């Protein structure tokens, strides 16, 4: 933990984006997490992604629950909207905000405790309802704030810092997200920003429920030998399915690829996801095959990462409910409170 703020001085040649902002303009307060926490790297990746996407900070709403991970929205996008909700309740607060104003970019940040234990139901329902959001779980497999008990995502057989071996089965959030209809599903590792930043960018440009499970080692309680969420273990067992480039606008193709090596998927908003295949047989647009492959590789002891599933034409909650396009705060009183006669008409229609 640091007491001093990060110096305002920056590299004299630090580039600016289309809005004239530098990457430093997307930072927040200095982190109060333990030194070396994987979550800080994820914050840095979010900052980088928003900078590269030329996102106006005031167009982002960052939501979180409780836990180390849920503290992080304070450490990035200091000029954005934020809501630090009750433990495990981020998904419903986000859903509510999204229903009231669909024009903001919703970024839900949660942890394995927040999403796989106390908020497991909330997580599941926000995904199955198809809320248009980027939902990032900073997954360290441990309850860091309460000093290192196993969390619901700890792998069976993983060893705690004091030597206890986990006997419970782990919840695979990726598997749940795929099953419940998330239309953009990825897994990454806080120690690999080259992979993580494009995955966040792709998710933020996705018009549907985008879920990223990001393994994020807890240096204080889960970075020892025997842990399956340590820097060393994840690096050794990481099996990336593909490498992603997110192309917005008309960026030229800069790298040469062998035919068949690259697959481009155009998202609904026009952005292009250029996937460099690392596993020839892997098809990220086939949900069933993706689930099958995940189970198979997990059984083989691998941690599968990359963009695991993408539906380029998703439907979201607003489409399903046929809601009004305009944010509620820009509707007049007459539209928001149509009066007893309108209610009567609705009731009549239901009789």
């Amino acid at each position: 933990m640091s007491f001093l703020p990060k110096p305002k001085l920056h590299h004299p040649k630090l580039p600016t984006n289309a809005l004239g902002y530098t990457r430093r303009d997307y930072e927040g307060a200095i982190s109060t997490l333990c030194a070396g926490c994987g979550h800080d790297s994820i914050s840095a990746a979010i900052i980088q992604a928003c900078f590269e996407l030329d996102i106006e900070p005031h167009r982002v709403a960052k939501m979180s629950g409780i836990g180390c991970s849920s503290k992080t929205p304070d450490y990035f996008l200091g000029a954005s909207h934020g809501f630090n909700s009750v433990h495990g309740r981020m998904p419903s607060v986000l859903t509510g905000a999204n229903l009231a104003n669909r024009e903001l970019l919703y970024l839900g940040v949660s942890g394995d405790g927040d999403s796989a234990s106390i908020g497991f139901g909330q997580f599941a329902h926000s995904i199955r309802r198809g809320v248009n959001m980027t939902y990032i779980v900073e997954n360290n497999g441990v309850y860091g704030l309460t000093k290192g008990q196993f969390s619901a995502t700890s792998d069976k057989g993983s060893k705690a810092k004091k030597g206890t071996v986990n006997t419970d089965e782990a919840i695979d959030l990726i598997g749940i997200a795929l099953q419940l209809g998330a239309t953009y599903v990825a897994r990454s590792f806080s120690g690999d920003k080259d992979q993580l930043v494009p995955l966040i960018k792709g998710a933020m440009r996705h018009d549907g429920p985008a879920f990223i499970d990001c393994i994020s080692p807890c240096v204080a309680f889960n970075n020892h030998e025997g842990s399956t969420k340590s820097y060393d273990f994840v690096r050794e067992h990481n099996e990336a399915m593909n490498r992603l480039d997110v192309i917005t606008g008309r960026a030229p193709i800069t790298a040469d690829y062998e035919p068949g090596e690259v697959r481009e998927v155009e998202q609904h908003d026009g952005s292009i996801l250029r996937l460099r295949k690392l596993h020839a047989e892997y098809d990220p647009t086939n949900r069933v095959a993706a689930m099958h492959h995940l189970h198979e590789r997990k059984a083989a002891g691998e941690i599968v990462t990359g963009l695991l599933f993408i539906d380029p034409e998703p439907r979201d909650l607003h489409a399903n409910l046929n809601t009004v396009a305009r944010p509620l705060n820009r509707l007049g009183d007459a539209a928001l409170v149509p009066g007893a006669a309108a209610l009567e008409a609705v009731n009549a229609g239901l009789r």
Partner: protein
Amino acid sequence: MTPTDIRNPDYFHKVVDCQWACPAHTPVPEYIRMIAAGRYSDAYMVNWHSNVFPGVLGRTCDRPCEPACRRGRVEEEPVAICRLKRVAADNKEGVLARMPPIPAIGNGKRIACIGAGPASLTVARDLAPLGYEVHVFDEQAKGGGFIRSQIPRFRLPESVIDEEVGYITDRGGVVTHYNQRVGSLRALLAEGYDAVFIGAGAPRGRDLDVPGRQEAAANIHIGIDWLSSVSFGHIESVGRRVIVLGGGNTAMDCCRSARRLGGEQVTVVVRSGFEEMKASPWEKEDAMHEGIPILNWLVPKQVLHEGGRLTGMVFEKVKAERDANGRRQLVPSGEPDVTIEADDVLVAIGQENAFPWIEADLGLEFDRWGLPKLNEKTLQSTLPQVFFGGDAAFGPKNIIWAVAHGHEAAVSIDRFCQGEDVTQRPPPDVVMSSQKMGIHEWSYDSAVSPDLRFKVPHAENEVALRDIKTEVELGYDRELAFKEAQRCLNCDVQTVFTSKLCIECDACVDICPVDCITFTEDGEEMELRDRLKMPAHNLEQAIYVADGLKTGRVMAKDEDVCLHCGMCAERCPTGAWDMQKFLLESAKPKAERVHACAIR
């Protein structure tokens, strides 16, 4: 690329840009921290050991440290290092007791120093505490050399010179022979000195050669001679209209002195462009602030005179062009000549060395420019017992170079007198010490001040121009000095990386405010520099490369704009980064060493 060898003292020394740029390698950040802490006497002594004349240099140094200062690369202006040095000198308490004692019984060796300028006095300062009997000869009545004769009093009060020369000549071990011009080196050598140091300066001012020069001789003065006549009170006035020829610091001193001696219309005329002038930017600024125009691209053509009195000068307008060999030349621009009316002309167009008192048959050889043939490191001449330093060695430079030469010559003379190999140079003294005090506490002030450079208060022109002895710069007060000192980035507190502790969590990469750390695949230097998080295109600054990481990548840190804020070390979970103070004191003769390092 080859991993960085941080055990080579040059590596971290280079990171301390100011200290590396200082010819005497003064540990600048060390004394600036002391000033911030109000430890003025300590700060003075750190300076005194390295540069001998902190009070003088704090007002007059050419400050090669400031253009080198890292602060100038991360914001607009460097730390005002020079003027902070003056703060230490102005606010110190008694320092005499802290100076190395002069032994009551000498070592039996006698050294002669010719000239009592900064180079000779540095030799005397370094050698006297070792028991040498140092004889200093000078034609003036007091010591100081050009410090006393050339630098106008409004920039440097005489009391400061007296004090700092006194620390050397009045503590024993040094015998002064003032008012005594050495007329023959042969005769001096015959007196049996164990070694002779020649620090006699570059005493001859270059003259003007244009029509009318001789006829108007009464009103044409050689700048350095005129300045010393002013210094010693032989000249107390000058004509109402004065032309100063030349673009160096001597020209600036001449024009500003003339302004104070009755010159109302003083004009500086320079052959080349404003940017190429040799004068320090702040000296040009100060001159212009005193209402002195600087005219450029004008070459003297003719001196106008009437009845033996100078009336003005004619100049030809020129421009710079490259000739067939790519050499820059001044050619007439074709514009009409410029005539400037004047009563007096001061010629400050350069200085030359002259050694008419060194006999040709002594075996002391000179090169074709009339400079002595020297070993550049040892400063030893072709006559083994004779050493040179200051302007006498390689032509006109400045005070701080003279001091640096003095230190090197003192090392040489000591080794020579002890029968040791002069070319074997002792290594510098280096101390590295971790600054870590707690999880997030450092024993240096790691916060980076956002302030811009503070201006040094000046006396108002009406007051300053009235009397040539009124010091024009008032100096920082303690409060301003503290604020300016806080601008120092503590570049001597080094980021030291230990690969085997690193878990590659990226915490340092993420926190670094200037993006200077990258973990990446190894490569050739130029290619590696290009793909760092921020490309490292300043090739004068090293990149610190460490291998031995678990993933097989390397850690590459661009030293260029590192703020030394310690954030990397603060956010490092394993202590792979540490902030360690690197204190280097350049080699001095044996008994007089480790002083800066001892003041902690």
